[in-house]
């Protein structure tokens, strides 16, 4: 996925490990799967706590309703499937039964984005951030790596309300340290810089860091922000960075018209006027291919970020 500088670690395994730890710590944790427990790794929890894992079969809408019922009865619920089946397919169930009554259901999905690869467009979810961030009461988190996955899962358990946590299929670059703090709604500055701000989410954070290295070669000091909570958005950190650097580029493995970048654009638009560019998948469905090839074809590259940064820098000068 990325250049060899990164250690690649599975977020799915980090999720499973954290679930098992939580299962031992808390008796109220219940986990639901929808015939994908082996893929999303909730099967590991099932091995440890078979009485607190329910496989609902290929019936995601039913799963979300059951999750709501369990939560209404005091359970802390995790419902897991692929991003495609945990959002679009169940949107109304999530809206009516989970978000509206503010149920403590954590929807943790894997296989988000285009890096799903060979399965193709039907399985490549690139609109989920839009669907979930549009829901009142919903918290939307895209953990950047395995460490942050563990912290986000724990934060979700202590948080009173529904969460949507978006994980990938493949192993992803480890860009944070084990002891880095994590708080829902707080963006982290990964690289300091004064000339332009690169705001990344998910696997694009590593690409932003690589882009900042590239830009440094041209004398540009880019600040890199890891926007792992998409909602609530850390507007304060964003506005500060925009003011201090005078230009913003966002990057995400998601449809660019409705994702993190558009949330950032809206927030900035009402607060500070700086040139901006968004890197992401244009308004189109994906297709089958190798993850790397798809990232290239759909413009999710270091070069796209560098080009966008240069464009922003040019417009800054005007």
């Amino acid at each position, binding site marked *: 996925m990325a250049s060899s500088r990164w250690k690649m670690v599975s977020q799915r395994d980090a999720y499973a490990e954290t679930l098992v730890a939580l299962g031992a710590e808390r008796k109220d944790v219940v986990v639901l799967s929808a015939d994908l427990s082996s893929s999303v790794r909730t099967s590991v929890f099932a091995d440890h706590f078979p009485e607190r894992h329910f496989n609902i079969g290929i019936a995601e*809408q039913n799963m979300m309703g059951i999750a709501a019922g369990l939560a209404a009865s005091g359970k802390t619920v995790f419902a897991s499937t692929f991003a495609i089946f945990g959002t679009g397919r169940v949107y109304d169930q999530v809206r009516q039964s989970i978000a509206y009554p503010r149920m403590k259901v954590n929807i943790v999905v894997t296989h988000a984005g285009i890096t799903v690869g*060979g399965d193709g467009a039907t*399985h490549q979810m690139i609109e989920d951030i839009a669907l979930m961030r549009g829901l009142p009461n919903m918290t939307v988190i895209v953990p950047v790596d395995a460490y942050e996955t563990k912290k986000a899962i724990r934060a979700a358990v202590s948080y009173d309300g529904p969460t949507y946590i978006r994980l990938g299929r493949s192993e992803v670059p480890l860009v944070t340290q084990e002891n880095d703090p994590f708080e829902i709604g707080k963006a982290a500055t990964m690289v300091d810089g004064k000339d332009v701000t690169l705001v990344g989410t998910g696997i694009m954070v590593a690409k932003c860091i690589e882009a900042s290295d590239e830009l440094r070669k041209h004398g540009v000091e880019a600040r890199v922000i890891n926007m792992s909570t998409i909602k609530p958005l850390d507007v304060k950190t964003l506005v500060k960075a925009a003011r201090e650097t005078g230009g913003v580029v966002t990057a995400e493995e998601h449809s660019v018209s409705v994702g993190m970048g558009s949330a950032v654009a809206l927030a900035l638009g009402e607060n500070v006027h700086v040139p901006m560019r968004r890197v992401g998948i244009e308004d189109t469905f994906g297709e089958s291919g*190798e993850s790397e090839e*798809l990232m290239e074809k759909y413009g999710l590259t270091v070069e796209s970020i560098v080009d966008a940064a240069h464009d922003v820098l040019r417009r800054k000068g005007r």
Partner: protein
Amino acid sequence: MVYTEQLIEQLRERARTVRVRIIEMIFTAKSGHPGGSLSATDIMAALYFHVMKHKPDDPKWEDRDRFVLSKGHAAPALYACLAEAGYFPVEELKTFRKLGSMLQGHPDMRKTPGVEASTGSEGQGLSMGVGMALAAKLDRKLTTTYVLLGDGECDCGQIWEAAMSASFFKLDNLVAIVDRNKLQLDGPTEQIMSIEPLIDKWKAFGWHALEIDGHDFKEILGAFENASQTKGRSTVIIAHTLKGKGVSFMEGAVAFHGKAPNKEQHAQAMKELGVGADGK
């Protein structure tokens, strides 16, 4: 109806070729779903090489019968049948799941000639079949729509919404086949989410329901014949099959739901299907 040994032998040979192609495609792509492709092969071979009226050189022929692969992950079986039938060159199969290919991981009706519906998210094909059968009634066409379902797929509520509407609209031009291989992704259907008593459920929804051995061509052809003579209601054929049928180590193996064979397994599979490692 009596079926000649010659016809049965021809279908068997077609099915064998389709199985070879399935293994080749998934091996070359290094991903895909062999188990549910192999279990459905005989049913699909019967449809494409005997039962359905269709014109591979005119994929949009108005009077054609429709086939909807609701369990879209069995795309390799569909592509192999379409290529064998002549919709596109067999060579194309090598591009399965590759960037720019007309053969997507799951069926795409806009990319592949002969594919009637874009599927892959389970549970949606029967509704599309109801729509096609309704359109045929509106247009007074004597076409039949066939929809292949997975047994795990029968977990989906939408299947039963579609079943209810098909019988409400008296769609005797709609035939559903359940590939009853008794496995879904996480394990045996009866351990993950039981769907039994399956035939009673379909009957309760107003369907004419049959049960057959989904690897016995005489029974397969007989069931389609029976369906074609049934008036006033839709027919469902519960076809008892073996997931991974034809490749010993894939038969009944949950592990081969969505996993490609490695080099040795590929060679072994080819041998069992009666071909050399060169695919001939």
